């Protein structure tokens, strides 16, 4: 059988992590920073702060928690989708408890994948790698 040579992309990505649990944000940042794939991992504690970050910088991926006070992750993404530019950013939704309704809403919003808590570094990197295709 022939062996396949995989073309490895050397691109570096900017990621925005949005979660009201600061410690989880930090963990995700540490995991992502361990990989050479990310040039910038920015943290936000809620949807409002996330919007401010999005207005200041371009991102390739948003990792957002579903359950946040004031505005949920799904509401935040739904709002983003109204913008032509921001709506194109790929999204990974993280959630501790996903209902059937949430899952369908996420699919309809074009959210690329869902990561259920708790997760380890390997699983996070698999999901992120699959979305960003590296």
């Amino acid at each position, binding site marked *: 059988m022939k062996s396949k040579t995989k073309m490895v992309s050397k691109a570096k990505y900017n990621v925005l992590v949005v979660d009201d649990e600061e410690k989880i944000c930090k963990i995700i940042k540490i995991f992502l920073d361990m990989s050479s794939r990310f040039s910038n991992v920015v943290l936000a504690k809620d949807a409002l702060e996330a919007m401010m970050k999005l207005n200041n910088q371009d991102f390739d991926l948003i990792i957002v928690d579903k359950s946040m006070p004031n505005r949920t992750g799904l509401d935040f993404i739904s709002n983003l989708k109204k913008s032509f530019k921001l709506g194109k950013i790929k999204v990974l939704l993280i959630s501790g408890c996903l209902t059937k309704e949430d899952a369908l809403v996420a699919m309809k919003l074009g959210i690329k*994948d869902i990561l259920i*808590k708790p997760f380890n570094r390997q699983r996070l990197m698999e999901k992120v790698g699959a979305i960003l295709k590296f």
Partner: protein
Amino acid sequence: MSKQKYLDNLFEPILVINNKNEIIYYNHFFSTFSGLSPRKIKKIENVSSLLSSIDNKISLDQQIDKVRKDGGVSVSKEGLIKFLESEETFNCVLKVNQVDEDEVLICFNDLSIEKSIYDKYRKQVEELKVSYKQLVLADKLKSIGELSAGISHEISNPLTIASGNTEILEILLETQDDLNSKEDILEAITNIQSSLLRINKITLNMKKFVHEGVKSKQFVSVDKLIQSSVGLVSPSFERLGITLTCEHNSDISAYVDELAIEQVLVNLLKNALDSVENSNNSIKEVKVYTSLDTKNNSFSISIEDTGSGIKEEVVDLIFNPFFTTKELGEGTGMGLSLSSQIIEEHQGEISLVQNSDNGCIFSVVLPSAEISNYLELETRNSNLDDNETSKVLVIDEDYLNLNFYTTLNEQCGGSFLVSRSISKSLQLLESININKVIFGESLFSKDNVNSILAMEDDIEIYVYSETDNISEVDIRGIITLPLNKEDVLEKLEINLGVDDEV
């Protein structure tokens, strides 16, 4: 005399009166039934004084006058009577007819037993309604679904933090020089991680228990679902002369509990039948048709009738439990409520999309088979396990093969994603990490393989032993037909996970 012998042997109380309304004959059963002795019956000068109607629904005199005047038969309404000098009451229907010029026959049809049973049934239905409401109230806060969802939600964050920190510690400590303390700390970290896995398993098991509400799902042709449902109700349609038409679409498939969805469709068809039967509209027809919504990855099954529609004031109540527009005993009022529950458990929606004097359209919307299968797998799997999580995508049109793999998922912890089309498969490949693809015979071709490899060029391709033209592409392995679990797992190099004992 022989006529009298027949009447004597009847198991129905019978009287015969003459033109003076005197009782000239009664059979044995009448005496037993009424409780009147022959002596008392003999004393009755006019049949009018034989009985009294307690609820005024029966008038024997009027019935006798009517048949004497018009001939024919007179049948009374159901009513409560009691006989002369007796306190016992009977729920009866009286049938009176003129048998010849002078004689009139009176027959008593005793419905007391039936009424008693009906009253008991009615009482039990009312009790059931009360019990159900109590159950719903009590269950609202205590339902396992809410409990497990709550527990799951509450501990997921701390679990994530704890597990993440232990991972970070582990990496940091590997760079430490002091070996002794490092070993102790590493062992402690292992213990913490084992405990976390154990908690995770508890929540996973609770989630699985919640999802057992829907029995095992299978891939099935929507066309076949509709045909089997229609088959169950078509005799009723034929009997009433109501046309039932179905549009066929063999391309749509569903991942559902087949019997449950059949139950929903049969219920909707029966409601449509009743509506058309009771309507004054000249067209008597029910139609079933499907449509695909590729944008939303869903499909719908619609049932359209030419009945008189549903009254506006009750439209909002039709999905409530025990709500019915039918007479007591003709419908439980649970049909739409249960149907709604079943469809909700399938992540779908059932709704009344059109309502007018000319009929209704009910629509059942369900997610596409591939999405339904994927969602089920994602909610089942643990993301804390260190086991290899490569997914195998099976692209096959054969329902038997597809259901073989979904059954295998029960044992393999969700390794197999299934799809019936190349286009849906490409959608799945956009965001899910797939290592291996199995092609069914009908979908295997060089072009299809190339379109998959264009998404991810290191995917391993597998085919079945009976597939043609396999030399045209680079194949990783051949799976023998008929499918068996050991061969499939061996060829794909998948090991069944072993549960960690803590």
